[in-house]
């Protein structure tokens, strides 16, 4: 059970392990890990088109999982003050500001037609501009262009020239998880829900999983020595609850459920967004044929993955492992041959 490719198949279902142990589509990931009767594979669908960047997921995750504080610092680059996923950040909200229109968005940040100095001069001189201490004008008396009325100007085609992308990143719970494959202790394991979890009482902090992860998710906690990452709230799943981040998400940007169902829902959502004039919408990590066999936690993005700090085409490193072992064996044989030839011809001349 500690290994995605291990011993014999149990149960009566057809052997899912024929091929695709290290890469490629794997429809029954828990079955391949040795669970004869597993519940459906569970996962996250993070729809970034409705993320408002509130970071409730980050907070809920820290609270529920007792993840330690990792520095109250300001990065100065955006509202993102966690930077990226790591040992003490299991949900990370990315903030991206772009000069790019978002379909029919009306952000209301442009006030090019408003002359604030002229407005200041009239302050307190007329009913539409009461002085300090006055209450807001009564309904119906607001001047044209004030916030209570229409939204500030947008372009003639109805689009604004600024958009914010916000996305809550998380461990992808890969179908072919490199961290799990390379873990030498069996500390990382596949759960019956098809997720990938670290057993903290086993981990000896060798750190091999850290550079193995193609997404830069798992990391070592310095003062502790062990590695940590999202567990997809394994403890909550066990009693039929949804993970803390999904529970806390106020816009249902983070959706939790059976992966099959989520994939269907996501495909529908992309189609709806395309119809609504957001051609940038695309799914990331939803394809079982991709380099990691599809992600257990996948995303709807509004730009290229690398803009969000995600790798554009990740491949599980162990896909090439059989070839690596072959090359290493060949190299070992060559080394032995070098040594033999170093002695041949010398043996008799110099006893």
């Amino acid at each position, binding site marked *: 059970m500690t*290994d995605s*490719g291990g011993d014999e198949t149990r149960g009566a279902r057809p052997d899912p392990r024929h091929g695709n142990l290290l890469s490629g589509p794997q429809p029954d990931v828990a079955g391949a890990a040795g669970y004869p009767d597993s519940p459906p594979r569970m996962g996250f669908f993070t729809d970034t088109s409705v993320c408002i960047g509130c970071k409730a997921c980050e907070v809920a995750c820290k609270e529920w999982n007792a993840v330690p504080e990792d520095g109250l610092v300001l990065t*100065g*680059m*955006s509202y993102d003050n966690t930077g990226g996923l790591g040992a003490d950040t299991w949900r990370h909200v*990315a903030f*991206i500001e772009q*000069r790019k229109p978002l379909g029919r968005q009306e952000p209301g*940040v442009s006030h090019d037609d408003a002359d604030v100095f002229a407005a200041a001069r009239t302050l307190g001189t007329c009913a539409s501009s009461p002085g300090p201490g006055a209450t807001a004008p009564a309904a119906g008396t607001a001047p044209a262009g004030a916030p209570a009325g229409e939204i500030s100007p947008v372009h003639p085609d109805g689009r604004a020239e*600024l958009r914010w992308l916000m996305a809550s990143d998380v461990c992808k719970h890969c179908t072919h998880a*490199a961290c799990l*494959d*390379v*873990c*030498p*202790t*069996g*500390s990382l394991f596949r759960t019956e829900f098809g997720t990938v979890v670290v057993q903290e009482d*086993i*981990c*000896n*902090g*060798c750190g*091999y999983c*850290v*550079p*193995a*992860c193609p997404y*830069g*998710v798992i990391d*070592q*906690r310095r003062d502790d*020595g*062990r590695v940590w990452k999202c567990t997809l709230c394994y403890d909550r799943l066990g009693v039929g609850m949804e993970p803390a981040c999904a529970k806390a998400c106020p816009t249902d940007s983070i959706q939790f459920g059976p992966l099959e169902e989520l994939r269907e829902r996501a495909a529908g959502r992309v189609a709806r967004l*395309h119809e609504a004039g957001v051609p940038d919408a695309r799914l990331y990590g939803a394809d079982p044929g991709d380099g990691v066999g599809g992600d257990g936690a996948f995303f709807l993005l509004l*730009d290229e993955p*690398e*803009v*969000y*700090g995600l790798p554009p*085409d990740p491949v599980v*490193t*162990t896909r*090439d*492992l059989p*070839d*690596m072992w072959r*090359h*290493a064996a*060949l*190299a*070992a044989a060559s*080394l032995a041959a*070098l*040594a033999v030839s*170093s*002695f041949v011809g*010398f*043996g008799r001349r*110099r006893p």
Partner: protein
Amino acid sequence: MTGSDVTREGVRGARPGRDAPTGKHGRRRRGRGERSMVPDAEFSSYYGKPVLNKPTWKPLDIAGYLYLGGLAGGSSLLAAGAQLTGRPALARVAKLGAAGAISLSLAALVHDLGRPSRFLNMLRVLKPTSPMSVGSWLLAGYAPLTMAAAATDVAGRHRLVGSAATVSAAVLGPAVATYTAVLLSDTAVPAWHAGYRELPFVFAGSGATAAAGLALLAVEPGQTGPARRLAALGTAAELGGFQLMKHRMGGLLSEPYEQGRAHTLLRTAEVLTAGGAALAALGDRGPRRVLAALAGAALLTGSAALRFGVFRAGVASAEDPKYTVVPQRERANAAAAADGPPAVP
């Protein structure tokens, strides 16, 4: 450069962080005297932050572990050869070298663990998908053999057991020297993974030169012939393999090997290894004894510099999103082009 609609004129320039590249991200500033190997790549990234989490391994521990493993594996081969061809002095040094190097190597590995007291968890399972698991089991078998070989040689007793241990260690030795290449390659680190075909040969050559270096440094004249020949062969494998590796990786991914500390270390390794092998070829008779010792020291240092250089290059390639994003973006674009233009709904 991406600006911001909400940035005021007065603020612009005073806080460079506001100009953090969220869209197109150009090249970062180069260090002194470094040449550009490839045209500057245009790519997007998240404020220039790395995609990968870089290895947490301490360079001294893990690069040292790679180096000492190579030294031990090569020495075990020399020890068996020397024993079978009747060169007791060479056999003694090689056996002690193998036992000493592998002990230090294991110590470095344990020292690098976040929880050293849990070292034995390495032997909890045997996973062919984990090079570190395979390596742990390999070392668990190999290390006692080298120690038995060295102990029986020094004690002069149980010679039959000693011979068996020496030969068995020589069987496992080449695997100990080359599996460490798989250990590095089986990661998402671009400069390591892309070299998985050639890196084992580079490490095999590097292990051979290190073992030959130790023999040249410590063995009395007259018995170092095989070591000198192994130095020449190992040097050819190491340097040839390395050039081939960089060539196969292409301009972008070989760049981490051509820049900064990694480049300095690898250049040093090249000079010391080639120089050491050339010096060793001169022989060790008479006054050349000093030259042979010098050659040995150069080979040992060169092998170490190679491992540290490869280690540094990998870490550098993980720290810069360019090496992760650009090759993957090219692959994704090529795949999309092969699938034809997306269907218009």
